[in-house]
């Protein structure tokens, strides 16, 4: 079985695209449709990598990212942010939350702005988890 990669995205087309890229490259995909589901799956499955969207129902990727990166059991899991939200806005929001008293978090291992092509996604995953 290949390394487990958790895809958290509310858009079914994006999920399908990510899952296809993962399977074609020998990884085992896990899928969540919002931040809350993603958090539960990450806790139970301890994936090797998370591919995370930002703008989603229930809980955004901004919050889930913080939760993963501040959880002592999960913070080692690398995260690729894959979103239409600009990297600059993502980083600024994390900075603002830290200024409001939340714990500071490191930058993600990679930030890809949608849309992304299959080769670029596969290469980014490979670079991070092999």
């Amino acid at each position, binding site marked *: 079985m290949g390394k487990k990669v958790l895809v958290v995205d*509310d858009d079914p087309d994006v999920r399908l695209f990510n899952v296809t890229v993962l399977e074609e490259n020998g990884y085992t995909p896990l899928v969540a449709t919002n931040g809350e589901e993603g958090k539960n799956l990450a806790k139970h499955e301890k994936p090797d990598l998370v591919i995370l969207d930002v703008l989603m129902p*229930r809980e955004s990727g*901004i919050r889930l990212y913080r939760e993963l990166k501040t959880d002592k059991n999960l913070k080692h899991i690398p995260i690729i942010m894959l979103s*239409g*939200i*600009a990297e600059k806005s993502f980083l600024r929001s994390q900075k*603002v939350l830290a200024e409001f008293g939340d714990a500071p978090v490191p930058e993600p291992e990679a930030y890809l702005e949608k849309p992304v092509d299959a080769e670029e996604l596969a290469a980014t995953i490979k670079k991070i988890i092999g």
Partner: protein
Amino acid sequence: MKIKKLLFVTKFEELGFDALQSLLSLREAGLEHVVFVNIIERERVAMRRGTGYSKEAEIRLRETANIRFIDWAENLFEQGMEVGAYIVVGNLVGEVIKAAQKEEADLIVVGRSQKGVIEQLYAGSDITELLHRTSKPVLVYKYLSESSFALEKPFESPLLATDWSPASLRAIDFLKELKGIIQKIHVVHVVDQKQLSGSAMAIQKTRKKIRAKLDEICQTFEAEGISASPHVYVGDPEQEIEKAARECQATLIVMGSSGKANWVERWLGSTPRNIAEKSDFPTLLIPPIKL
């Protein structure tokens, strides 16, 4: 009834980011999370003939909404807010209610219905249907451009129109939670002229009784540190509430919504619905608790 999460329902031609920005004063009263909802109504993606629908039209509408939401979300994320979004094809009211339940939203914000009078009579008003199907407060927001009021702080000076119904009493609890952002509340009751019969003494007695009830409500607000003043008006409720809002320079009209059956409201109308649809002021409607 703290407003931590609001659902911002938009059909872009009705509500824009300027409207949303003006609601961000609610952050001082606990707002943390904004969820954008865009419902693509089925008829907008239906084929001209047959029963199918155009996937291409759906994609175009979805992505148009997505582009707007990304722009808005970036702005709010950068202010430290939590943001979510729904873009779905379906029935407007049904999908809004589903999203409100899923998100456990505390307030639903919608634009004024754009349907004409005849269309509303036959098809019903989205606002009326929404109020009948949800127990969540609904804020009917207006175009900023067509309004002559400064809506930078819509909750600064609300006018609470009360008819003593359970829903309007619920509105008191709702407004108490906004004490951090309300400067002054005007509490109004409109007396039907028919109630004012008999001698001058009898009429003044009625006024005094109503005034005492309004004073009680004002004291409830004052106990929370919110300045409040009572006002008695006489005449047609719809006209008088609008007049009171102007005279008090209110920024918002707040009312309990009627418990009348949907069809009764459709054919006979109701004061909250009519004000929500026609008033120049944003209108916050608090439904009774659904049992």
